[in-house]
């Protein structure tokens, strides 16, 4: 635990002194601002989907690869991974701390979008549905967690951060486009196969949370997939021992 805290502190420190992270945050906030301005001032809809529909779906796919690309690949390239893994820390602690560090940064960025909620509250006379905002934000963090874990996993394979970013971005894009283009999937007949297919796509679960619905299936989906990728990342780090 002590190791984990020390490692996470280092990760957070490194993110918060990196120009790249601030550039990403600027991009993130710009996109959210754009979506919000567009939607709110035209639709006047006071709900959490106003914040993210439709460009907001795209944001974690774009932002997560940039934030995660360097996490392991840079350590590989600089050789600091050797320093890190010859210190008395476990591989799992290293992976979890990297994930937590980047999650803290993503969380801070997301917290800044609460400004938009404040603006909505200011112009809105009726009763705010705070519950749906809470589930919406939970959804934003959960889907970000999944893409960050995936980006971290990809980062463990490459020594060039750009390559890692490219691979995780394209993968995210593929998932997003299949999700949009194929509802209901034209090639899959209704039934179990189609259900499984739909269940696999993260954005279907995200939509539920944005709609204010808390379903344990959605929560379990995000937690399990995130843990799965973190576990795989640990195995990739460990793989140096089998080679």
């Amino acid at each position, binding site marked *: 635990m002590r*190791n984990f805290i020390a490692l996470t502190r280092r990760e957070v420190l490194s993110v918060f002194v990196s120009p790249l992270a601030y550039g990403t945050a600027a991009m993130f906030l710009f996109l959210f601002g754009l979506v919000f301005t567009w939607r709110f001032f035209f639709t006047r809809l006071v709900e959490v989907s106003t914040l993210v529909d439709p460009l907001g779906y795209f944001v974690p796919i774009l932002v997560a690869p940039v934030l995660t690309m360097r996490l392991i690949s840079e350590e590989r390239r*600089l050789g600091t991974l*050797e*320093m890190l893994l*010859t210190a008395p820390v476990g591989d799992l602690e290293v992976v979890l701390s990297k994930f937590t560090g980047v999650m803290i940064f993503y969380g801070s960025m997301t917290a800044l979008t609460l400004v938009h909620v404040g603006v909505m509250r200011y112009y809105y006379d009726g009763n705010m549905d705070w519950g749906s905002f809470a589930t919406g934000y939970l959804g934003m963090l959960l889907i970000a967690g999944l893409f960050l874990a995936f980006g971290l996993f990809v980062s463990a394979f490459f020594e060039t951060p750009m390559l890692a970013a490219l691979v995780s971005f394209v993968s995210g894009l593929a998932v997003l486009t299949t999700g949009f283009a194929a509802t209901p999937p034209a090639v899959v007949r209704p039934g179990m196969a189609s259900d499984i297919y739909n269940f696999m796509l993260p954005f279907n679960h995200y939509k539920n949370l944005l709609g204010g619905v808390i379903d344990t299936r959605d929560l379990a989906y995000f937690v399990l997939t995130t843990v799965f990728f973190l576990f795989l990342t640990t195995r990739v780090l460990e793989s*140096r021992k089998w080679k």
Partner: protein
Amino acid sequence: MIEADKLTKRYGDFTAIEDLSFKVGAGEVVGFLGVNGACKTTTMRILSCFQPASAGKASVAGFDCFKQSLEVRRSIGYLPESVPLYPELRVAEYLAFRARIKGVPGGKVKSEIARVVGRCKIEDRARQTIGTLSRGYRQRVGLADALLGPPKILILDEPTSGLDPLQRAEVRDLLLELGKEHTVLLSTHILSEVEATCARVIIIHGGKLVPDERVAKLRAVRRYEAAIAGPQDNVLGALRQLAAVDAVEVLPQVKEDAERSGEPPHTVFELIPKNNEDPRTGLTELLASKKDAGWKLLELRRKVLSLEEVFARATGGGT
């Protein structure tokens, strides 16, 4: 403290090291020598638990490098050759991070950092960002990191590579001091360094160990150099008659040097003693008896084969 038992490391078909066995006792300072590509780094990575061996067993501080990797890592300070550091952090921040993950208790982190920073003389750079440090300072930060803990054993991979002669001398002095408290295994291909710092050397060549006995034997061969004034042929004949002498050679002289030194005309002989006996007594007696004939000893010195020569002979064949 460090024990390698028949270590073998293969990368696919390529055998990097083969059946490497050696021991480093507590408190020893041992130099690990080999030409570039002799897989010194691979061996050190195995000892520091970064990579496992394909076969054989390595143990450090009594723990197995593969099965008890955490315990091993707790007892070593390891400095890789390229000195990888996080460029975006400040020196003090970096060392604080390393101290914490190395298990230095929270209350002692500050004093521990002060200790290693003082040791490596980087007090004035503590606030500087690592990315802006010169190579010499980076090396010292790496060393300071290795000292955090403090660990019982230091494994240093080429701690002086990339340094200028002045910095090398500083690191050498530091290593001499460290040798008093830690068990040190350091690799290098700069031999003067090893002569100055290490009590013992381990030479690997082509992934195999050059046996200690062979190194010891090469190092034990002593030669004597004597500059004697007198008729060359007669002196040579007389020297060959000496009981303790195995062979005598006439060394070529630099003519200019002889003129400048103002010495009388003389010849320099190299005496190789029989079974390492000391031929000097016999030599003085001989010269005393020939005093009237004008033979005169101008210079006599004992030569030990330098590590450079030992290394060349051990790795390049030769005798």
